[in-house]
């Protein structure tokens, strides 16, 4: 494991997000398959003000980690903490904002009503609630569509409405699950700009992504997960070795992906040969 996730000294700031030997096992639904290990002793630490990229191929365990952090799934072993509180306590989620991969919101509500609903959950006083709704809608550039039902929004607008709900409580930590997935280049750029702005405001962002360029641009540190195991963590520069020039090359090396022996390459070669 390369440059493990500790970037601060023992006397430095305490991690906002921490996992200790986190292990998650699932009982497979297929007969004879037994137990499948989704996470194997994951140790992570994310510090205040960081933008932390969480990378890995599909099925690596990224979403499982997020599910445990958000209390959707229980860990089989180890522990996870948000702001020093065990993630199984609902209060641990008081200071976080979460954006799921796909937009899952009540489509019969308008953006304003959706934000009002989530603000009520956080017990934000009415005057502050309305002010906060104005602020986040302006931030995600949805102020003009605030009275329209969410079902009439484009995918990019829905994703931004999702970001708005994640920000309604002015969270200290944002957990974003592939925030730019399925968006067009303009939508991606807007989401990236928002993440950048949040970073400038000193927010901590923990996000998973398959977009290496995006991760390189906005992340202070990254962690690479493969088959439920943490393979590497550190700054982008610290992960590059030899003549590697970008994160994608480092990523493929770290997950031990052999480009020449991949089935896609083999099929392409066969196609070319024919």
């Amino acid at each position: 494991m390369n440059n493990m996730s500790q970037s601060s000294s023992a006397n430095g700031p305490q991690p906002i997000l921490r996992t200790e030997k986190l292990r998650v096992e699932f009982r497979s639904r297929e007969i004879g398959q037994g137990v499948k290990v989704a996470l194997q002793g994951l140790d992570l630490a994310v510090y205040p003000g960081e933008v932390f990229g969480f990378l890995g191929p599909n099925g690596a365990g990224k979403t499982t980690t997020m599910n445990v952090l958000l209390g959707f799934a229980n860990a089989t072993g180890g522990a996870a903490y948000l702001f020093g509180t065990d993630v199984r306590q609902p209060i641990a989620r008081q200071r976080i904002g979460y954006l799921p991969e796909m937009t899952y919101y009540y489509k019969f509500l308008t953006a304003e009503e959706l934000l009002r609903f989530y603000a009520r959950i956080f017990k934000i006083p009415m005057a502050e609630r309305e002010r906060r709704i104005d602020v986040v809608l302006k931030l995600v550039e949805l102020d003009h569509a605030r009275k329209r039902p969410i079902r009439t929004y484009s995918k990019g607008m829905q994703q931004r409405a999702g970001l708005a709900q994640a920000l309604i409580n002015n969270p200290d930590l944002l957990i974003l699950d592939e925030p730019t997935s399925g968006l067009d280049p303009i939508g991606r750029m807007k989401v990236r700009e928002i993440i950048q702005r949040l970073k400038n405001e000193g927010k901590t962002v923990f996000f998973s992504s398959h977009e290496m360029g995006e991760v390189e641009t906005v992340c202070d540190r990254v962690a690479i997960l493969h088959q439920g195991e943490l393979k590497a963590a550190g700054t982008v520069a610290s992960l590059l070795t030899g003549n590697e020039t970008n994160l994608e090359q480092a990523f493929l090396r770290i997950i031990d992906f052999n480009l020449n022996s991949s089935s896609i390459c083999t099929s392409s070669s066969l196609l070319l040969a024919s």
Partner: protein
Amino acid sequence: MHIILAVAGVVILEMIRRKDVYVLLFLTALITLLLGSVNLFGDPNIARYLKEVCLTLIWISSVVIAIATAARQIPAEKESRTIFPLLAKPVTRAQVMLGKFFGCWTACVLSLALFYAFFCLVSGTKEHYWPITNYFQAFWLHAVFCAVVVAMTLMGSVLLAAPSSTITIVGVVVLGILLLGRHLNKVAAKTGGLAGDLLSAIYFAIPHLEWYDVRDLIIHNWPAINWTVIATDTLYGAAFAGLFLVAAWARFRRMALN
């Protein structure tokens, strides 16, 4: 409490924005109005029959609203995956369940209030008699009935696979209790033996929803029920609703969301 109220608020908003409830409200109001305006054969007792038909309609509508609204709440949250952003907030599954219950129940009570107010207006105008206490008691017991049905449906919705099966099974159970509940002990006494014991056990285990059906109070203009009986019935209903909600929460707590 603010979380429960916020979740309940969304359930009520959803119901307000759905067309099916308006259709049901409109149809019931229309039939009540039509029946209230006719004067068949100059029979002075005809008002009683008309009241019976209208109240039966209100009962059917309330059962449909209670079961259909509650049955889809949790499955729809799972299916549309809105449960994820909700549970990512400092919200427990118990609060979600209670919010859904209060939302569905409030929606039912609001519909009932509309039905009863309209029916009282039509019937009172026709009879020139306004037994407000009777109407209130019938309305309140009907509301408690809805609370038990909503809680039972929520429990069904986390135990059964699809909302359609929940609607069918809870519908059959509610209808069965309403029609047969009061006769079970008599049948048990006549049957005897093990089958009789089993029927007796069922009689004492089921929520006696038929106790909440006091349509005759309005139809025949009987004297109002003793308030102690109303209070006891309310407690009995609350106990069953609580029991169903605890069972629903116990299942929902361990339910995989993916």
